[in-house]
Every structure is written in structure tokens, then in C-alpha cells.
């Protein structure tokens, strides 16, 4: 018993070190902006640059749009597949892996070729960027939604709701989605982290996004990129926390499900 526990602790500490030592090192490095003393000067420089806030806000907007579009597109599809077309599951699963197989650079050239002339001249539209991001986050959203649906008795719950007179809208918003809260959050979380740091699509489609900004700063400066990395890390976690809080208060009673054990 105690030996097994010892092993558990060992692995946990190893995991902890693996994730946090680099972060800590980056943080300490970022404090060396002034020779000989530890200071937050690098952070001050970052905040002083108007580009920082502008690019971060832009990427934040894109991330939220991607989450909304991705979820609205994928949730009904996966539910439909679960209930009506289980035969399509392997096909969609294979599809969902394509963004891993096809590099973003190929995707973006494809997008540019396809949409840079009539009949679809969309290269300068934000919609194309968001569409590209939706493709990139498709595997993560799909998997999270699929896992969420597998974890509940989707057919039983929808049929129970139907026999109680509920329409599809009611079933979705009162029964299915509240019971997928955790998996929807993780889908949102993953999408968010992908979009915030995304480089290729943003550069090739020429958008002032946070990813290109970080790359630029990393090329020209020494301590500021480290500070930026720490900041973006904290900001991302903070925003995830906000999403979680918001969804908890929105779901109301539903939040007690997880916490009632």
C-alpha cells in the first residue's frame, strides 16, 4: 500500500518537475532584464509596447470566434452521428485526424489558392482565418465532444426528454449541453491555447496576431520574450478560469453535479 503510494508520488513529482522546471527557468530568466539585479523591467517593456495588447486582443477575439463557430458546427454533427448515423463514426474520426497529417502551411496555401480570386475573394477576410482555425482545432473539439457524449447515455436521455414532450431545442439546451459541461470546457480550452499561439496561418494570411508578435519579439530581444511567454501563460490560465466561472454560473444548478460528491 505505502509502496504503491510512494510510486504514485514519485511519478507525480516527476510530472510536476517536467512541466514546471522549464516554466520556472523561463520566469527566472525573464527577471534578469537589468544586469546584476532581479527586476520586472522586461515585463514593463512588454506592457509598454502597444503591439502587445493589440495583438493579444486580436488573437483573443479570433479564439472566441473559433470556439463559438467550432462548437456550433461540431456539437450537432457529433450528436447526429451518435444517434442516427453511427456508421459514419470511423469516417469522421479519420477526417478529424487530417489536420495532424496535413501541415498548417499546406492548409494555408490551399486556402490562399482557393479563396484569393473569384468567385470567393476571401483572403482578406477574418472569416477565412477563423475557418482555418476551426480546421486546426477540429480534432480537439471533435474528441472532447465525442468523449462527453460517450460519457452520458445520450440516446436514453434524449428519448426520455422526447417522451416528456421536449423539442430538440429544449433537449439540447436543458439536457445534452449541461451534461457535457466539462468536455465543452476542455474543447474550449484546447481551442483557445491553439489559437492564441498560432503562427503559420496568421503570418501567411497577414494578420496582426499574438503568435507572429511573439515570434517577432523573440527574434529581436532577449529577456522580453521570456516575460511574454510567462505573461501569455498566465493570461491564458486566467481566461480559462473566467470561462469556467462563467459557465458555472450560467449552468446554475448543473454545477452541483460535479461538486456534490
Amino acid at each position: 500500500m505505502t509502496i504503491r503510494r510512494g510510486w504514485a508520488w514519485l511519478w507525480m513529482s516527476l510530472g510536476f518537475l517536467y512541466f514546471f522546471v522549464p516554466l520556472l527557468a523561463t520566469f527566472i530568466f525573464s527577471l534578469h532584464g537589468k544586469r546584476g539585479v532581479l527586476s520586472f523591467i522586461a515585463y514593463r517593456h512588454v506592457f509598454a509596447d502597444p503591439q502587445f495588447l493589440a495583438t493579444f486582443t486580436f488573437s483573443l477575439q479570433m479564439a472566441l470566434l473559433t470556439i463559438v463557430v467550432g462548437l456550433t458546427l461540431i456539437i450537432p454533427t457529433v450528436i447526429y452521428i451518435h444517434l442516427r448515423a453511427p456508421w459514419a463514426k470511423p469516417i469522421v474520426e479519420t477526417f478529424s485526424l487530417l489536420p495532424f497529417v496535413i501541415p498548417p502551411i499546406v492548409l494555408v496555401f490551399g486556402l490562399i489558392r482557393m479563396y484569393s480570386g473569384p468567385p470567393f475573394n476571401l483572403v482578406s477576410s477574418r472569416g477565412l482565418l477563423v475557418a482555418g482555425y476551426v480546421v486546426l482545432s477540429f480534432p480537439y473539439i471533435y474528441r472532447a465532444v465525442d468523449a462527453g457524449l460517450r460519457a452520458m447515455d445520450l440516446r436514453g436521455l434524449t428519448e426520455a426528454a422526447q417522451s416528456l414532450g421536449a423539442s430538440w431545442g429544449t433537449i439540447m439546451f436543458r439536457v445534452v449541453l449541461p451534461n457535457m459541461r466539462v468536455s465543452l470546457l476542455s474543447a474550449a480550452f484546447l481551442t483557445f491555447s491553439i489559437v492564441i499561439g498560432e503562427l503559420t496561418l496568421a503570418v501567411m494570411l497577414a494578420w496582426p496576431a499574438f503568435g507572429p508578435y511573439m515570434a517577432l519579439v523573440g527574434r529581436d530581444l532577449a529577456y522580453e520574450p521570456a516575460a511574454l511567454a510567462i505573461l501569455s501563460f498566465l493570461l491564458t490560465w486566467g481566461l480559462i478560469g473566467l470561462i469556467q466561472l462563467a459557465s458555472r454560473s450560467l449552468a446554475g444548478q448543473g454545477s452541483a453535479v460535479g461538486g456534490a460528491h
Partner: protein
Amino acid sequence: MAFLELEGVVKRFGRAAVVDGFCLAVEEGEFVSFLGGSGCGKTTTLRMIAGFESPTAGSIRIAGAEVTSVAPNRRGVGMVFQNYALFPNMTVRKNIEFGLKVARWRPAEIAPRVTEMLELIHMEELGERYPHQMSGGQQQRAALARALAVRPKVLLLDEPLSALDAKIRQRLRTEIREIQQKTGITTIYVTHDQEEALSLSDRIVVMQSGRIEQVGTPHEIYNRPATPFVASFIGNLNVLEATVLDATLGLLSVDGQEVRTAGPVSAAGPRVTLALRPEMLSLEEGSARANTLEGNLINIIFLGSIVRLVIAIGKHELILDRFNAPHFALPPLGSRVAVGFARDACLITGEREPVAAATP
């Protein structure tokens, strides 16, 4: 006109007919069970009544209204599922409220109705619990209350007790029957458990391979099974092959020993199936008006209140049940015993051979 009517209902998945020519008329307030093994089409039929499957052919009417192609949420049919299907994000109270809110009941009427339902299932104190905080039996009672709250025209139960353990199953069985009688709701109950069907139902529909084998009261189904399948499916049954010696006298031969039935045998062929319930047999020699078969005692199984003896008669093995008594002396294994049974204990369930081959 009956309250719930199914007329020539057929359901095909691909080429295979899962339900074939299902006709049934259920009266208002009646409790009807669909009984059969897995894959007999009982659940598919239930799901067609609920609207979750649409029939390939035939029609379904509830209270005189044609509902064959009506969406499930507009049929006014309540459903209880094997795995409860309570909404995990809602308390029991919210679960029961769900249908009432969907039906736009006035808030002032919802609360008393929910309380009434909680009282009906004896769970007044558990209204604020979430499904995962309750036992399976409690969850299923909550699901029953949820289905009944909206006053559906018909209540459908799809093997509601199969996921529960034996003790709770029996208690809940009684409770379901009481609630059904109290509310007077027309109920269809799907089960593979003959004991449930026999103890709950006004009528039982025995199904096999998508077809109805027999419709009747539990008493009729048990005592006068119409087909060999019903006879073998309901209760334990000894099935013996017999040869007709004299059809008008009701004289048969089982492994060279004579058996007389209560009346003439109507079978056309020389070979029939003789079925005997284990509880109709005794270890005493029959009187002049009864039958006796001799055989070897090959096994004794102690089942608590019942002692089951297995007796070999020719190639057949006969099961004999008798109540246990402390002073009851059992014959030793391997000994020759006589099995007595009344003439009217004989169930002749059908010919073993086609009619054409009967007359020499």
C-alpha cells in the same frame, strides 16, 4: 373501440422482419405485458408505440387518434427505461418538473404536482437529491414519477427492473402495480421475466421471432398455453414426446408406458408433445383415475422451499417439484420411482410432425 390499438404492425430492418403482423387492442386502464426472449421484437414494438421507431407497415392508434407518424414528443406517451435515463444535471424534483415545464404548466400548479408525485413514490425527502446520490431502485421510482407527472395517455415500461437486484426488483414490482392501479393508467410493460409478467399483468402477450404466440390472462397463459413455445417459455415444463394410441379416448404412450389425458386428443398425427408442469407431479402412484410413469431418480436439487427431483424416463428427463418438509424422506438416488399425475395435468401442445405425414 380499444384505447390503444396496433393493427398489422410490421417493422423491418433491411430484409429481416423484427416485428411481423402485430395486432393488439388494449383497453383503457389495462396492464399488458410483452413477454419473450431477447430479439423477439417486444422492445421494438414498444418503441414503435413510443414513436422512437416508425413501423414499416400497419397503424397505431391511441385514444382513437392515429399516431403512426406522430413525433414522439407529441404522442402523450410516458416512458420508463431500463437504465432510468434520469437527467444527471437535475435533482429528482427538477427531473419531475421537466415535463411539466415543457408542457407549460402554470408555476402554481407545478409545485403541488411534483410533491404529489414524490408522495406517490414515497420519496418526499429525496426531492433535492441528484440521481447519482440515489440507489438504482430510488432512481427508477423517480423515473416512474417523472413519466407519470405529465399525465400521459399510455405508460410504457421497457424492462424497468432488469438492472436491479432481486429483493428490490420484487418490492418495486409490487409498487409499480399499486401505482398503476391507483392512477388507472393504460400500461405496456416489456419484460423477459415470466414471473414479472405473470404477477403484474392483466394480460400477457407472449412473443417469439417478431410474432405474437399467445395473448391471454396470466392464468390462461400458464394453464392453457396455446403453442409449444408458450408452454416451454412460461414456467418450468417437462416436454415429452408421446405417441397417440387412441385419439378419442385420449390414450397416449410415453416410452412404452400408457398415459390418459382428460379428453380426446385433437392432434392429426400419431406423434404429439405432452407437457407436464413440475408442480403437478407427485411421487405417489396415481389412483385409477390418474396416470403413473416409472423411472429412475437421477438427481435431487434442494432449492429451499422446494425440492426438485430429476427422474429419467426412457430418453426423457422429468423434473418433479415438491414443497420441502423436514420429515420428508427422499428415495435414494438411482432407485426406481413412480411419478403420479392427474389426467388434466396433461398439456397436449401440438404435433411433432407435419399433418401430411400423419395418415399412413
